[in-house]
């Protein structure tokens, strides 16, 4: 069945390499057999000693037997299951981290709001204290002004009383002087 390959057959096969690689299970079967034994190739590299080894039917069976193929498929299945489990764990852990982060952020926001409220309260208290000081200062200024005003009034009254008394004294002196003159004339 393998003899008599025509040139057109070869051309047809070689011009459609990709299709042969991807679709022919026998090619892949041979590829797996060639790669058997850790990827170095049981049959490759032109190594005659290796080539002699692989003529052993037992060795070949160990490489390409259906049981080993099933092992490969089972290993892939386990690998995929482990990967799915890892993805689930990663998703769960990430959700947990995200929840913790949001909870922490929420607490931090509440703390900031509380600090802002306390700062506002402190500011209001300070303003009240300032107002109180200003009020006290105004009161003191008013009292001092009134005191000065009263003092001025008292001073002016005293000066006025003294002036009046001085004028009275002078008037009495003139009266006495006039009476003395009139007495001498009479």
């Amino acid at each position, binding site marked *: *069945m*393998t003899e008599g*390959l025509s040139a057109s*057959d*070869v051309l047809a*096969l*070689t011009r459609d*390499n990709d299709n*042969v*690689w991807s679709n*022919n*299970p*026998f*090619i*892949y*079967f*041979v*590829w797996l*057999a*060639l*790669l058997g034994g850790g990827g170095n*190739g049981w*049959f*490759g*590299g*032109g190594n005659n000693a290796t*080539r002699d080894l*692989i*003529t052993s*039917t037992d060795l*070949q*069976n160990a490489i*390409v*037997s*259906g049981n080993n*193929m099933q092992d490969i*498929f*089972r290993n*892939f*299945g386990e690998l*995929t299951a482990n990967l799915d489990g890892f993805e689930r764990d990663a998703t769960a852990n990430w959700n947990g981290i995200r929840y913790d982060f949001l909870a922490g952020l929420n607490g931090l926001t509440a703390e900031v709001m509380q600090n802002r409220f306390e700062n506002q309260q402190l500011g209001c208290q300070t303003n009240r204290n300032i107002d109180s000081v200003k009020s006290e200062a105004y009161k003191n200024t008013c009292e001092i002004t009134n005191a000065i005003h009263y003092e001025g009034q008292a001073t002016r009254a005293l000066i006025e009383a003294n002036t009046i008394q001085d004028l009275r004294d002078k008037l009495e002196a003139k009266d006495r002087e006039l009476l003395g003159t009139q007495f001498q004339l009479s």
Partner: protein
Amino acid sequence: MNYYNQLQPQFPKINFNQFQQMAANLPESMLAQLVAQAQISGIKQQDIESGLNYIKSLRNQTPYGG
């Protein structure tokens, strides 16, 4: 579960140059055993024949062929 159908796309791709070199050095007796193993594994005869023809064509073309 059919692992083959599920996981086949994840299998390593065939390296053309490496395959060509390996196939060129593959003894005729070994190729015959591989054909027998493929038949036992349930690979279609048509696929085996076309694949075998392709490998032989590589051996005729390649400088690696012995």
